């Protein structure tokens, strides 16, 4: 009885993602279902679309740079927040993760106004800063959760045996928190790669990201080219999640 109700609801939930795969193989020159024939022409069109390919390269570079920077900024802060009980710790953590709770449309507008007067719109610096705003809270939350799940006793043991703090971090904490670091990399990389709304406000005519280019493409015309791009994006996401899960175990890394 419940199954009869749940099956169409699951279909409703998954249909838009599943449908892009067959549609990406359409031979039609416009968006139509069912396709009148099958071909790989839209994958070829995607590979030969200079704008989208440049945007894809930008997004790939951006997500790698942002991942490295987010990790470098968030790891020291996460160590202090997870390890030192100082007054105002909850408030500081709330402030640092607040962008996660606020609408991206508001965050994007706030950055647009600041960036516009300083020549940061449509620049790499601006894009990296915008993506740090979005990804730092994720990095902090994942790292703090991961550190909170580690046994603190071993660090104290190493320290009491005479290891200086830097050695404790390098030889004990860092190896233990590696799964958390890997999960952070996977999540920050995906969030940065998928980020659309904030990017929309700070991109420029010469520098744009893949999701923004796709958004603009869907706005201007609807043909199966976006389905090919979408299918590749879904496969890329699955690949990142699969690798992260196989190498470190995402759930273990999330501290659950």
């Amino acid at each position: 009885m419940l199954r009869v109700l749940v099956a169409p609801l699951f279909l409703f939930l998954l249909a838009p993602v599943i449908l892009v795969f067959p549609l990406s193989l359409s031979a039609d020159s416009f968006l139509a279902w069912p396709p009148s024939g099958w071909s790989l022409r839209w994958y070829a069109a995607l590979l030969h679309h200079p704008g989208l390919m440049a945007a894809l390269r930008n997004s790939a570079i951006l997500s790698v740079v942002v991942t490295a920077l987010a990790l470098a900024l968030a790891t020291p802060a996460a160590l202090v927040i997870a390890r030192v009980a100082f007054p105002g710790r909850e408030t500081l953590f709330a402030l640092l993760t607040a962008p996660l709770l606020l609408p991206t449309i508001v965050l994007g507008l706030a950055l647009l106004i600041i960036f516009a007067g300083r020549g940061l719109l449509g620049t790499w610096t601006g894009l990296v800063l915008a993506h740090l705003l979005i990804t730092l809270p994720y990095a902090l939350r994942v790292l703090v959760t991961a550190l909170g799940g580690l046994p603190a006793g071993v660090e104290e043991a190493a320290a009491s045996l005479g290891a200086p703090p830097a050695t404790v971090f390098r030889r004990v904490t860092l190896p233990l928190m590696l799964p958390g670091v890997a999960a952070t990399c996977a999540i920050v990389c995906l969030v940065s790669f998928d980020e659309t709304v904030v990017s929309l406000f700070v991109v420029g005519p010469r520098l744009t990201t893949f999701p923004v280019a796709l958004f603009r493409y869907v706005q201007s015309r609807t043909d199966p080219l976006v389905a090919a791009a979408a299918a590749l994006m879904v496969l890329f996401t699955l690949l990142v999640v699969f690798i992260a899960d196989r190498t470190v175990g995402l759930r273990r890394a999330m501290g659950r």
Partner: protein
Amino acid sequence: MGGGLRRPRFSLRGPLPLTPSLKGRGKADLPSHLWLLLPAVTANLLVFLWPMLNLATLSFRDSASGGALLPGFSLATWAGLLTDSYYAELVVDSIGVSLLITALTLLCAYPIAWFVHRAPDRWRNLLMVACIAPLLVSAVVRTYGWLVILGDHGLVPGLLRALGFAHPPPLVFNQTGVVIGLTEVLMPYMILSLLAGFGRLNPTLEEAAASLGARPIAVFRRIILPLSLPGVLLGCLLAFVLAASSFITPSLLGGGRVPLLATEIYDEAIVTLNWPVAAALSVVVLAVFGVALVLYGRLSHAVA
């Protein structure tokens, strides 16, 4: 995914936590560690706090036609916003549509969440992945999927034509499309919240009620529904604030014909270049968020 997704554990009373609690640990030797916080705090001040405060103050500036900001403090933007019935309608419409989407999301998500909660362990992992997977897919992609399904040459109008409707009603570039698309986009958040709420249910309670002669409907109404209310409230809060502030889906499925708060902010900021109005509308969005949070706090206190 290997291993097993354990159900989240929460205390039996009180609202579901929005943020993880920090366990106290270690000595309070902050001064020697303070510098470790500096990079993250600096970044936060630079890209978050300063731009947000600047945004709030910008709504108290006035702009000349053409977008140039006039110097000095002014209430002209707010006065214009509050007296123009277009903006009043915009806010009311946005809240109304968001409430409708929240209700539909809850209706569609509740059976799924219940089914996943009751599924045998080996199925639950797979079903959880199916529920969470759409979250990992870009909103642009999922919205594009809805254009494929609902568009004029799409799946649903095609089916309707095959069933004999010569002129199926347009399902995209209007409010119908926005509501359908956003409902689907927000379902995973609702499902996850509901599952967190169901985690508090004790199956022995249902069995006890059933063994005492309560019919399934009564068990649901008297036991399951009340105990799952904290999850319902959290899911509704998330769905509402996300619906009220989402941009990609309303923009693509509305085709510029369904003005909502988020699309209006974007248009004012990028097309009209009226930043004070865009800033004031952002403050309105944040105020709507605040009211929703307060209501959530009150209601979850009441059901606990």
